[in-house]
């Protein structure tokens, strides 16, 4: 029996084998290849490539556009993440509050989540149309007297960046509500009951019970949002000319990577370098947060 059991458990390797093989081919090797390319001057046109050491990295760090892209990506992500988590916490508290007894919680939540499922490319094109010079937003603003004359919204760096922040928030707050509510309903009611007996008020219960117990979920939301945010592409790329206009206000990491890739010489060595730097930056922050906060919990 012991031998039989031993053999049977080896089936586990067979079950995970397709995943492991596909991961090595389509996941790990491309990562290795990207790192390798970042040390070469490979282009799309040439089959020959030379090892150039850290030259690509030196050039990238000396490039102001790269600094702009990294700062923009962080700015856009942080400005959308704070209201996203704030509104989501607020809605989750209201939706799970037994004293308020709000009606139609499921329906509200389902509707707030809808934008998340829609194609980002179509969303970008939609907002481009809505905010274009002859678009509905101008029609409304001028006719109702909010603006004396129509405005070129997408030529104003602040408005354009604000719009990208808004779209990101709009697409993601509903999902955050669902995740936080799932975490809140998993917290045992008896904890709140005993706190109530001890005379705790609503704020104390939120900060001493809800928030600490939500921590793993908040870390999960934080990291997945960060990893997605650092790779933001579709919305800023398709909202304006695909070069981060106006004035580089919505130039992001991935747009810069794409521009290097699609330049006339197709410098994939330089494009890979952008990918490597953003990969390292994001991974350090994400795993750092994961391990630091997780360990302190134990």
């Amino acid at each position, binding site marked *: 029996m012991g031998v039989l059991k031993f053999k049977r458990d080896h089936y586990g390797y067979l079950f*995970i084998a397709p995943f492991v093989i596909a991961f090595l081919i389509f996941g790990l090797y491309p990562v290795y290849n990207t790192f390798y390319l970042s040390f070469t001057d490979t282009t799309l046109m040439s089959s020959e490539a030379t090892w150039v050491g850290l030259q690509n990295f030196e050039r990238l760090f000396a490039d102001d556009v790269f600094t702009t892209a990294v700062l923009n990506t962080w700015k856009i992500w942080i400005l959308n993440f704070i209201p996203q988590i704030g509104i989501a916490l607020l809605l989750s508290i209201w939706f799970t509050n037994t004293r308020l007894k709000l009606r139609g919680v499921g329906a509200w939540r389902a509707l707030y989540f*809808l934008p998340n499922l829609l194609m980002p490319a179509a969303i970008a094109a939609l907002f481009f149309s809505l905010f274009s010079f002859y678009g509905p937003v101008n029609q409304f603003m001028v006719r109702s007297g909010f603006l004396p004359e129509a405005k070129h919204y997408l030529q104003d760096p602040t408005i354009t960046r604000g719009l990208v922040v808004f779209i990101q928030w709009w697409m993601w707050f509903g999902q955050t509500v669902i995740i936080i509510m799932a975490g809140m309903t998993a917290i045992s009611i008896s904890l709140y009951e005993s706190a109530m007996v001890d005379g705790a008020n609503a704020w104390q219960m939120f900060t001493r019970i809800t928030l600490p117990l939500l921590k793993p979920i908040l870390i999960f939301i934080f990291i997945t949002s960060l990893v997605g945010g650092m790779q933001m592409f579709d919305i800023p790329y398709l909202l304006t000319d695909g070069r981060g206009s106006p004035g580089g206000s919505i130039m992001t990491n991935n747009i810069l990577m794409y521009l290097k890739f699609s330049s006339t010489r197709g410098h994939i060595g330089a494009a890979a370098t952008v990918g490597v730097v953003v990969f390292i930056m*994001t991974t350090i922050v994400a795993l750092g947060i994961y391990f630091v906060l997780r360990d302190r919990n134990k």
Partner: protein
Amino acid sequence: MTKNYNFNTKAIRVLIYIFLGILLLVTILPIWLLLVNATRSTSEIQQGVGFLPSTHIVENYEILTGRGLDLVRGFLNSLFIAVSVTVLTVYFAFLASYGIVVYNFRGKKLFAGFVVVLVLIPLQLSIIGFFQYMSRLGLTDNYAALILPSIASAFAVFFGIQYFQSVVIQDLIDAGRVDGASEIGIFHRIMMPLAMPGAVTLGIFAFIASWNNFFNPFILLSSIEKYTLPMLVQTLRGDVYRTEYGAIYLGLAITIVPVILIYIFLSRYIINGIAMGSVKE
């Protein structure tokens, strides 16, 4: 005292409903305008903002498809890729996660931990290395490069492990073994049917993610007849349709309506799935 308290709760409730209503308007209005404008003629759209559907949908469709944009083909291309990705993602992720939950092999904890790490790191950023590698293999401009990587979806395995931990019934597996079923046969004939709700949930996510994916096909595909829907959306913004607003909105509507329909019928699966993919007991 009690009266006062009730009044306060009621007032707060009204204020909350107002807030929720405004938030709902902000959420839905852009989508509503998109759907409505898809049915309005360009001149109607230019005359002013309208919130009610009009009758020009056929006209818009003729303009949309009359200028060399093969939307039907793009639709079918996206559908083909999304269905293939869905099948591969769900099958292989469930295979791997079932293996992890049911068998006690050496290194399984390590493997499960590794999957979590993979979920947390931005593997997408290796797209340049992936592209160059595919071009060496002659697989750029080939759907295989978009479909095959879904065999190794870390998020799907992460989801599958949590799912199987709650649905695997050891007695059923043992009964299958007594009946002489092979290990893989038990997975196919006993566990897969049992795991159908999870497969549907994961499948919806895989389908929508593939359907909406712009970046990867945009990098990899080059011939126009292979373009997917999100890539055609980019064409809609080009010069050909510059002032044909009705047609543009209709084109956008066609790309998002399938997902809205899926959501109307399967929202329960989707919302539960999001909660399940994030909350770990």
